[in-house]
Every structure is written in C-alpha cells, then in structure tokens.
C-alpha cells in the first residue's frame, strides 16, 4: 500500500468561510438550471471558472519561481497519465463525490451541511466496527457494513435537521457542534477495549474480514472477468496492485439514484420546493420540518457511505482520521458541481485530479504540493465570481424585462 493521501490540515479552517458566498450565488443559479440550454451554460461557466483558476494559478507558480507549464504537465500526467495515476485520482474522487452529493441534497432543501466531516467519520467508524465481526460471505456482510455506515451518518445528520425543524436551530451551528462530538466519539470508540474484540492491533486483525466485504476494484474486475467476458485491458487492471476500490462504483450509482430522486420523484420535488420557498411548501400543504429532516438524513447517509468507502475500500481497517478534511472539501465539490449530481461527479473528479497529481508535481517539477490547495481555493473563488456575475446578468435581465416594451421582450407581457 502506498502512503496515505497528503494531509489537508488547512482545509477545515479555510474552506467554510471561502465557500459561503458561492453558496448564496448558487441558490439563484438553480433557476438557470431548469431549462436544457441553461444546463449547458452552467457547465460552461463552471468550466471557464476552472480555466480562470488555472491561469491565475500559473501566475502563482511563476511568482514562486517555477515553470507553470512543467508544473501543470506534471500535475496532469501524475493524475491521468497512467493507470496508477488514474487509480489515485479515482481514490481521491470517490469520497468527495459521495460526500459532495450529500452536500448537494441538503443544499437543495435549503440547508448548509457543514457536518459532512463528522458524518464521514461516523460512517467510517460504523462500517469498521461492524466489519470487525465475522458476518459471513460478502453478499451478507457488504449490505450490513454499508447499512451501518449509512445509518450512523444519516442519524447524525438527521439530528441537525430535526433540531432545525423543531426549534429553528441553525444547522450551520449544530452540524459544526456535531462534528466535534463525532470526532471525540470516534477517538473513544477506537480506544475502547470493550467495544472491539482486539485492540490496538485492530488494523491487522480486521483487515482480512474487511477486505472480504468491500472488494477492491481490481479484485472485483478480476472476479467479474472470471464470470463474464471483459475487454482484456480492463482485466489487466486486476493484475496491477492499485488502490482504486469499489467505492467509485458506489459513488456513481449513488449519483444516478440521487439525480432520479431529486428531479423525478414527488419527494425530490418537495425537497426542492422547501429549499426555494418555505411559504410555497406550506401553501402546497406539506411539512417543511419533515422534508428538511429527511433531506438532511439522506445527506448524512451519503457522507456515511463516503466514510465506509474509505474504511472498507481504501484503508481496510484503519477507520479514524482517515477522512480528515474531506468532508470540508466536499462542500466545495458540491458548490462547484452546482449541487447537481452530474456536476458533483465532475467536480469530484477535478478535485481528485488536483489531489492525486500534487505528488507528481512536487517530485518532478519541484512545485510545492500546497499549490494544489491554492488552486482549489482559486477554483472556488472563480466559481463564486462567475456565480456573482451570473446573478448580475439575471438581475439586469429581470430589470430590463420589467421596464421593457413587451413587444421586444421574449416573454411578452399583457397586450
């Protein structure tokens, strides 16, 4: 196993503040998403924001005395240039996509879930705890461990949702509080001898059982290859000792399901209504409190699954601190992805690329790994900038429409 991902200690400090504004911008941006061509424009503006961030980042690299072209080449070849790079990109993107989806669903309901980090930790902890016990073959063990993770993350987040529904307590505050509780709970659980059969040699003893529950991706490919025909190069993946694991499949499935739920079901409709207009929800006659609590629960379920993926798929037994910081990066992923499942996948992959390419950039171009965090921050700022300018456009469009001669406007007013 290669070394764990670079520590992202600064993330929790920087990002919640930095993303507060794009959050507001994206709320307005939802309207643009509603028709097909505005989906394209959303994609376009996100892509341009990334391009702007890369250009600005190039200046930062120049100022720090390195060659931006060499650095970027290393960044992308390290993350996409070979199978190992792609594997590491997917490894980094997997929890970001899952937790980013979690952020998106809460945001659609009008909630800002800053507690993803705690929900990820608890999900990982629950999955690890359950996997510690011998649960039988993987078709039994896998649903049980994932279910435990989903339950832990879901309940933890639903708590914040229910508090808001009952007393109006801001979820921003309660989820931050719940984060600290979750961290302490995890520290205690890992150290509690009564809770776990073997301690502290937990890692080695659990690994065997855990590995059987969430097969690593190459092993899964190999397994599939034995039963169904697969192209040779995919089968070849199984030979390599890559870290990519089945969590990426889980993430993609979750994105598709979430997309369906949000846009195609009455429940998703209620979630979106509640997020845009509490008054309209009351008028329609459905419960605001219940809807936000459920949306928050789903958000936590997804974050919990992100933690489970880390515990079961990536670290295979080491289940605390493994998630450090990713719950906060996931907020950025949700916002950059405009809280649309498809956008979240793309944004998760982008942040995965930045993370996995950082090492190569440092090794071959000599550019500090920390530059990647600057790049992440620049992407967020650029997105915020584009969202703000989009909002301005919208406002001036609105203004000119309300004062314009109806004949010239695309939506004529009354005759």
């Amino acid at each position, binding site marked *: 196993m290669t070394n764990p991902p670079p520590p992202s200690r600064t993330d929790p400090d920087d990002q919640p503040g930095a993303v507060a504004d794009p959050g507001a911008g994206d709320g*307005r941006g*939802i*309207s643009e998403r*509603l*028709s*097909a061509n505005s989906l394209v424009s959303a994609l376009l503006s996100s892509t341009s924001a990334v391009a702007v961030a890369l250009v600005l980042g190039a200046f930062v690299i120049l100022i720090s005395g390195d060659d931006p072209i060499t650095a970027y080449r290393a960044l992308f070849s390290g993350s996409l240039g070979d199978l190992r790079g792609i594997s590491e990109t997917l490894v980094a993107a997997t929890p970001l996509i899952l937790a980013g989806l979690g952020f998106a669903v809460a945001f659609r309901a009008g909630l800002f879930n800053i507690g993803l980090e705690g929900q990820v930790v608890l999900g990982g902890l629950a999955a690890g705890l359950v996997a510690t016990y011998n649960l039988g073959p993987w078709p039994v063990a896998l649903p049980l461990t994932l279910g435990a993770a989903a339950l832990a993350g879901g309940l933890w987040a639903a708590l914040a949702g229910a508090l808001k529904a009952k007393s109006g307590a801001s979820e921003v505050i309660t989820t931050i509080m719940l984060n600290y509780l979750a961290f302490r709970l995890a520290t205690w659980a890992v150290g509690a001898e009564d809770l776990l059969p073997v301690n502290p040699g937990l890692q080695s003893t659990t690994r065997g059982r855990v590995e059987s529950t969430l097969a690593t991706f190459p092993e899964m490919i190999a397994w599939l290859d034995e039963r169904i025909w697969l192209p040779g190069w995919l089968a070849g993946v199984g030979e390599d000792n890559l870290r990519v694991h089945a969590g990426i499949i889980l993430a993609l499935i979750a994105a598709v399901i979430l997309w369906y739920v949000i846009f*195609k*079901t*009455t*429940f998703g*409709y*209620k979630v*979106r*209504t509640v997020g*845009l*207009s509490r*008054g*309209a929800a*009351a*008028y*329609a*006659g*459905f419960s605001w409190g219940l809807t936000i609590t459920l949306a928050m629960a789903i958000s936590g379920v997804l974050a919990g699954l992100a933690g489970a993926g880390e515990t079961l798929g990536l670290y295979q037994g080491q289940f605390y601190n493994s998630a450090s910081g990713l719950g906060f990066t996931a907020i950025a992923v949700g916002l950059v992805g405009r809280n649309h499942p498809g956008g979240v996948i793309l944004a998760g992959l982008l942040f995965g690329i930045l993370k996995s390419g950082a090492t190569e950039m440092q090794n071959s171009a000599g550019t500090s790994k920390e530059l990647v965090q600057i790049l992440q921050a620049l992407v967020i700022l650029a997105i915020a900038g584009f969202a703000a300018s989009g909002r301005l456009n919208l406002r*001036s*469009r*609105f*203004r*000119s*429409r*309300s*004062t*314009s*001669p*109806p*004949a*010239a*406007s*695309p*939506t*004529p*007013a*009354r*005759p």
Partner: protein
Amino acid sequence: MPSAAPNPATTINEPVQYAVEMRGIVKRFPGVVANDGIDLIVERGEIHALLGENGAGKSTLMNNLFGLYHPDEGEIRVNGRPAAFAGPRAAVEAGLGMVHQHFMLIPRFTVTENVILGSEGPGTVLDRDAATAEVARLAEEYGLRVDARAKVEDLPVGMQQRVEILRALYQGGRTLILDEPTALLTPQEVDELYAILRRLRAGGGTVIFITHKLREVAAISDRVTVIRRGKTVGTRITAATTAPELAELLVGREVLLRVNRPPASPGEPILVAENLHATGSRGEAALRGASLTLRRGEILGISGVEGNGQTELVEILAGLRKPDSGRVLLRGQDVTAAGPHERRRSGLSYIPEDRHNRGLVLDFSLSENILLGNADDPPFSRFGRILPRFVRSLTQRLMKQFDVRAPAPETPARSLSGGNQQKLIIARELHREPDALLAVQPTRGLDVGAIEFVHRSLVNERDKGRGVILISFDLDEILDLSDRILVLYAGDFTGEFESGQVHRTELGLRMGGKSSDDQPTAAVTD
C-alpha cells in the same frame, strides 16, 4: 453637469416654466428598448401623473432622470438647465427628490436620523438637536405629522412614507418623484398623502406621481402623461379627460373598467366558518368570534383595513393555521383540523396574496409551479414518481386557456410579468374545478389589462355555481365584484351589505370601526 447645487430659494425666482423636461429619451438594454422616444414635460408647481402599465418603461425613465441610468438619446433639462446627472447625488443637488416604492429607511434609526442620512454635513460631531428641530420644522410646514424622535420601525407604513418625503425635502428637493406611492397604504393614508402633496404644490413644489391606477390619476394629478411600450402615447389635462380614454391610451385597446356582472343567484352554503377565534403573531386577539357563510354562485367580498384579522382569517380558511376555537365547514364536512392539501382535495382552491413567496416558486419552471399542491395526487404522480408528460401537456393546455404569455412550460416563473404569474396561479387553482375559491388580493400590483382578466375569471367561477371569497384592501375592487360585502374590523365582522346598497363612504367608516351615525370627521385615524 451641474457643479454647484442650485439653491431652491433662488431658482424659484428664475423665469423657468418647466421643472423637468425630458425629450426624445431612448434607453436600450441588450435585446430590448426600454424607453423608445419618451417625452415628459412637467411644469413647475403641478402634480403630474406618469401613467403606464408594469413594464411600460416608467421606472427606467425615472432612473434616467435621476442619474441611475444614462439615456442613449434625448435631452433632459431640470429647471431649464441641461441635466445629465452622473448619479443620484447630483440629481438631489439639482433639487430632485425620489420617494421609492420600497422605502430606503433604516428601521432602528429615529425619524431624524433617517432624514439626515446622507446629508449629515461636514465634521464628526452630529448636532442632533439642531437636526431634530429642522426636521420638526419641515414636518410642520408641510403638514407631515410625524414624531421626529420616533424610531422608524415603530411607525406604520404611511408614516414611514412621510419620512421618505421629509428626507427628500430636507435634502432640498423641490421636485418630488413618487414611485407607486399608494401601493402599501390604506385608503385613509392615501387621502392623507394626497393632502400632503397638495400642500407641497401650494408651496410651489412639483410632484411627479408614478402610477398605473386610473383612479389615482383622477384624484390627485393636474396633468397626466401616458406611456405604453416605452413610448409617450399622450399628455392630457386631467380635468379634460375621462377614465375610459386614459385606459385606452394605457392598454392600446378598449378596456372594460368594470366587469360585466349579472345579478347573482346564490345556492346552498359551501364554506362556513363559525365563531372563529385566533391569536395574532404579537399575542393579540386577531379574530374574535368571526363567522361567515359562503354560498354557491356568489362572490362574498371581505373588506377591511389591513391588520384587522385578514391574515388569520385567510390562513384558517385555507388550512394553514388552526383557530383557537370555532370551526370551518367545507361542503358540510368539518375540516377545521384538515391541512391545505386535504382542503384542496375537498374542493377549496386558494389564490394567495403573496405570489412570490407562497403562490409560486419563482425559480421553478411553469410546469413545476403547476405541480405545486398537486404533486401527490393522480394523475400528476404515481407511486411517488412525477409523470412529467402529463404535467407538461397540462401546463401547455392551461397556458393557452388562461393566456399565460411565456415561451414554454420550462420557462422559469421568475421571468414572467406579474400579470402572467397571477394567471398561472389562477390557471392552477381553477383547473381543479373547485367548489369554493379563496381569492386574496388577487389583483395587487397588476396592471389594468391583467386586472380585467382576473375579475372576469372570478365572475365566471361564480356563474359556474362556485362560491368565491374575495378579500381585498382595495375598496373599489370589493364594490365592483362582490354580491355581498362583509366588513372585517378588529377581528370580527362589523357589517354586512348587499351589493349596490352601500356607498363607499359608509364602508370606509365601517372599516375604521365607525358607523355613519358617528361624526364624519372621525374617519381620520391616527
């Protein structure tokens, strides 16, 4: 560009006839021409109404005048001098004052603090007493009775507007622009506003009164300029014109100002409220034993000044709130405990007062708004899955049937004009073919053409044998449409009148808690 502020005292002596001259104003925005050659000539010392429908270009024109926009073509003169203001500050220095529709006041500041905001003068120490005295003197001079030391948040809306007017006067404004100033006022407050404006005129001041209501033009203005689709379509002396002529200028076609309404033939009771009691948001008794009976085939108008229990009554009837005591019967069934969704299923439709925060989700498409309140019912959804094809075709059908002007069902509701938004709500609420319809302020903020449509829809529903409750603060609307009128005052109904058997003065007195036996002068409340 005016560098020095003209002193109002000196400009008044100059032989200038016009306070404001705007000639051939053109303002283009990407894709639209908001002002397409507008002429507006305002004489000194007159009250000049600027009449136009929503979207006709009134606000753009005033923003051009005030330096918020810069016109692409045309000439602006203020007090005879060429005026191309760089911004509002320069406009204020030239003697213009703007009273916005949505007040730009700081609620926690006192009246004086709000008035002097932006013209505190040099130095770091504020002479609060001198400022208060000056504000009080101005208020006295123009009859703007308002306590200079009161906090703005404690004042009723009409008073807050006076603070805005005071601020404009304090800043040296001799020409006041009032943007839809009556939108938020009660009938009494409107009368008081008129009195203030007349006093301003008597003192040599000039007023530009922006409105889309014909009644206001007739009530207050000396002359009126009508604009339609960005063009001036005519200027008239108010006394020499008629409402139908103005309406035709305004809309571009002949308009029925009063909807044709054959006599009602009321049937059985459909919606009954018995002895409703409710507590308001500040813990006061908002409803005190109000009862009403709505019959099929009638429009029951509920008139009253805002804040006399209308909010609570509507919410109880719609199922958004439970009464402290009393009950609500819909088609003979006790629905007191039922929520909005259940009542909708039992045959009650509801056109809410607040289009933007209740009746619509502005960021949703038209289709998604048609789903609002219907999402759980077949054929809109099955097993929790929305049936998009049904919703889309229904939306298309309703758009055609109710003349909702929009490119497609996917268009966001936000981009529609107020009238089209309201038609969308009406389409959604009427397509269910309800037995009873609750319409709250259904024409608020709409222009003449849209009002005609809404009124016609309500009368049509009545003629189809449905019961309609119309709650409105607009007395004329109540009088025009209702077959029976109830007056809501202080949480109870204080009068019931048959259509055509009551005069607006009598109703106005009842709305103020008086009856015609009382002294007429007591109608002025404060």
